[in-house]
């Protein structure tokens, strides 16, 4: 689906004339600050992510990457600054509304429901596709049951896309970590988001799985915008078209992977001050 004009599946992305990389189509974070008591977690951070690209957010531990994600998905209210999603200011919006606007997020801890089968886990993510409201669902069993079937099909398709449809009836704790990660990703994708926020998707994965993940991210990025928080530099440098570097809650560098790699400030943030010889 075209991110800008909502045309169902244009023949190819380039055929849709409205698909321009303007800010109305993307997520922009503008001068956002977050303080926890005396600690400044984010200090006037700005970031612009466009559909069709992968925007990386990197930085040492404690730099504020996860806080930035929490702001972008509505968990944390910024003390100042604005968020603009798809040309609309979204100050004070709650996570469920953002998800319904088309922003999906995966969690570092995956957040799968341990006592629900994989399929049901993914079905919950498809809720925002649903048309039947609470009242109608309570009154008439008919639409609810057919709706449930619809969700089930959507969830199966998402699992299938990740190649984990065979685990649909298993409980998440029974599965290897890499499979659980794919389930979490399927759950984020099942709502057909326009933007996907990935929080350390590579942590705990083997070298081989990580290569597969990179392919997947690149494939997905042709259909939606992705913001990626990640520690594995190989992956970040491979898939990102733009990178923001955070350190102590501030953006210290921004640019293409090559530019960021060459920036001395970045090396300093990761390795400490250069030793004066």
């Amino acid at each position: 689906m075209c991110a800008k004009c909502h045309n169902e599946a244009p023949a190819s992305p380039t055929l849709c004339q409205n698909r321009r990389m303007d800010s109305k189509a993307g997520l922009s974070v503008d001068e956002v600050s977050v303080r926890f008591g005396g600690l400044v977690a984010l200090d006037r951070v700005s970031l612009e992510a466009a559909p069709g690209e992968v925007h990386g957010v990197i930085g040492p531990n404690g730099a504020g990457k996860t806080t930035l994600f929490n702001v972008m998905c509505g968990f944390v209210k910024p003390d100042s600054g604005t968020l603009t999603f798809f040309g609309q200011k979204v100050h004070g919006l709650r996570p469920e509304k953002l998800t319904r606007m088309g922003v999906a997020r995966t969690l570092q801890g995956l957040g799968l429901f341990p006592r629900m089968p994989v399929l049901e886990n993914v079905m919950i993510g498809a809720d925002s596709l649903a048309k039947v409201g609470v009242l109608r669902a309570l009154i008439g069993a008919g639409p609810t049951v057919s709706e449930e079937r619809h969700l089930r099909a959507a969830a199966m398709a998402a699992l299938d896309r990740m190649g984990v449809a065979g685990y649909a009836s298993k409980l998440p704790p029974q599965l290897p970590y890499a499979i659980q990660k794919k389930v979490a990703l399927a759950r984020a994708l099942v709502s057909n988001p326009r933007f996907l926020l990935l929080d350390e998707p590579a942590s705990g994965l083997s070298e081989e799985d990580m290569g597969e993940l990179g392919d997947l991210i690149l494939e997905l990025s042709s259909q939606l915008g992705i913001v990626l928080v990640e520690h594995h530099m190989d992956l970040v440098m491979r898939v990102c078209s733009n990178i923001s570097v955070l350190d102590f809650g501030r953006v210290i560098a921004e640019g293409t992977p090559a530019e960021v790699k060459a920036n001395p400030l970045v090396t300093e943030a990761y390795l400490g001050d250069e030793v004066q010889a």
Partner: protein
Amino acid sequence: MRNFWNFLLIGVSNGLVYSLVALGIVLIYRSTRVINFALAAMATFSTFIAASLIDRNVPYFVAFLAAIVFGFLLGAATERFVMRPVESKSPLNAVIVAIGMLIFLEAMAGVIWGAKLRNFPSHFSLIGLKIGGARLAISNFDLFIVTVVVVLLLALLVLFRYTKLGLMMRASAFAPEVARLLGVRVGRMLTLGWGLACAAGAVAGLLAAPKVFLFPNNMDGVLIFGFTAAIIGGLDSPVGALVGGLLTGVALSFIGGYLGSDLENVGAFVILVVVLMARPEGIFSSMSARRV
């Protein structure tokens, strides 16, 4: 021996009512970690609504349904307007507010309908059934209780297991933050959960009233038995609520039958204390005990 079977049957019939109360407590506890002590008053209030409709010659079953709908709306409104503001604070605040609701609603029932005992019609005969020459301790009304509770439990089972809405409600109960992130409107699910819980309470009130009479705090005792049942069941399991209710009902029926009916309340507390000491997480709970 006939006594034994009679006590057992009475126990099952009463136990199903306790199960409904336990279910009302469990549905709310597992999504909000609040024990809704106001459930007793909500049940009584709904029963009074049915009683005054019946006084105005409304047919029994219409009044019965109206009371359930009223219970649902009362529960939903309580969550939305009374509990929501204290939701983010310590659970203790919510418990105190619930106790406040209990006192308020019971007092209001007294103001509106008066504090004296009154009969509540049962529609079905309360006289024991005859099998052969022997008269059993259970009546047509007890069979009605069994039918209503079984239908209600099956309906809830279908809702939670086989519908989208039930799935969202379970997700909201297990991990509200994650559910929010997935686009589930958790607030609405909570409102709905309180509505369903209090509707179950209303049914319990309607089924208990012919036996315990109707007055502003007629359900207080039943709430204690239902609470015992919920604890036995583990507080977060609907199946546990059903089994806990049956166990409590049967145990109290035997205690009342063999040892004297004054001892039923004492028996409930003894069961409660023993369960809390021996197995504080209940029989059916999936939670491990929390260390404080």
